[in-house]
């Protein structure tokens, strides 16, 4: 799993992930994601376009992120999920719970 954080604009953070998001990589993603909430963000975007697979531990990481985002009033978006990853969110009845958009770049252009 590779992960990279960029502050795209003031307060807007992009976390780009690459690789399978499973039990062996979730702890690493968690340690990349949660500290971002201490950077006074307005919006955190996770780019999933290079994540071919996610399991329940990966989902748990994002649910935790969602809970933090609600508590601290930060917009939290999952971008570019592949069909496989999207269908796993769907199976967890979570597709409507997260803000999910097809493309991180297009979202950023709009902001």
């Amino acid at each position, binding site marked *: 799993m590779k992960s990279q954080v960029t502050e795209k604009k003031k307060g807007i953070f992009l976390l780009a992930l690459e690789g*399978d998001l*499973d*039990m*062996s990589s979730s702890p690493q993603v968690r340690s990349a994601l949660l500290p971002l909430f201490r950077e006074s963000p307005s919006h955190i975007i996770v780019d999933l376009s290079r994540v071919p*697979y996610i*399991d*329940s*531990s990966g*989902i*748990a*990481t994002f*649910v*935790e992120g*969602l*809970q933090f985002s609600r508590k601290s009033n930060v917009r939290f978006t999952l971008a570019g999920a592949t069909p*496989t990853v999207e*269908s*796993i969110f769907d*199976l*967890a*009845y*979570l597709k409507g*719970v997260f803000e999910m958009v097809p493309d991180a770049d297009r979202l950023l252009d709009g902001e």
Partner: protein
Amino acid sequence: MALDELKGPVVLDIPADPASMFIVRALVGTVSERIGFGREECGRLVLAVDEACTNVIRHAYKHRENERIILTFLINLDYFQVDIRDFGPAADPACFVSRELEDVRPGGLGIHFIKSAFDRTEYSVPEDGGMLLRLVKYRAKEETGQE
């Protein structure tokens, strides 16, 4: 190109370690694809077996090192069967329950993913210890094709 059956079981014996899960996924993925399950169905089968193994690592072995998981795959005309065997302490499968899914919080999705993918899921306690989870997915008649 569909695979009708294999003449015997395929046994995969791996370290009970998150780092070996990609091997389980590759094996389940390639086998379910060859059997002829649809793309989404294959994805669910891969996820389910992955979740069953990570449950063993977390709950049965509590992340202890040097433990093993043995997966046994059977492929025949009627079904695809995966046995997941561990050697941890026997537990009561009646307590292995999914949480309410409306309640959005981390965790508690594994059992739900397993039951969504397979037609039958049965836990049992083998005589020589540990736990055995048997997962069975029936094949639709169209999926067994000759070439």
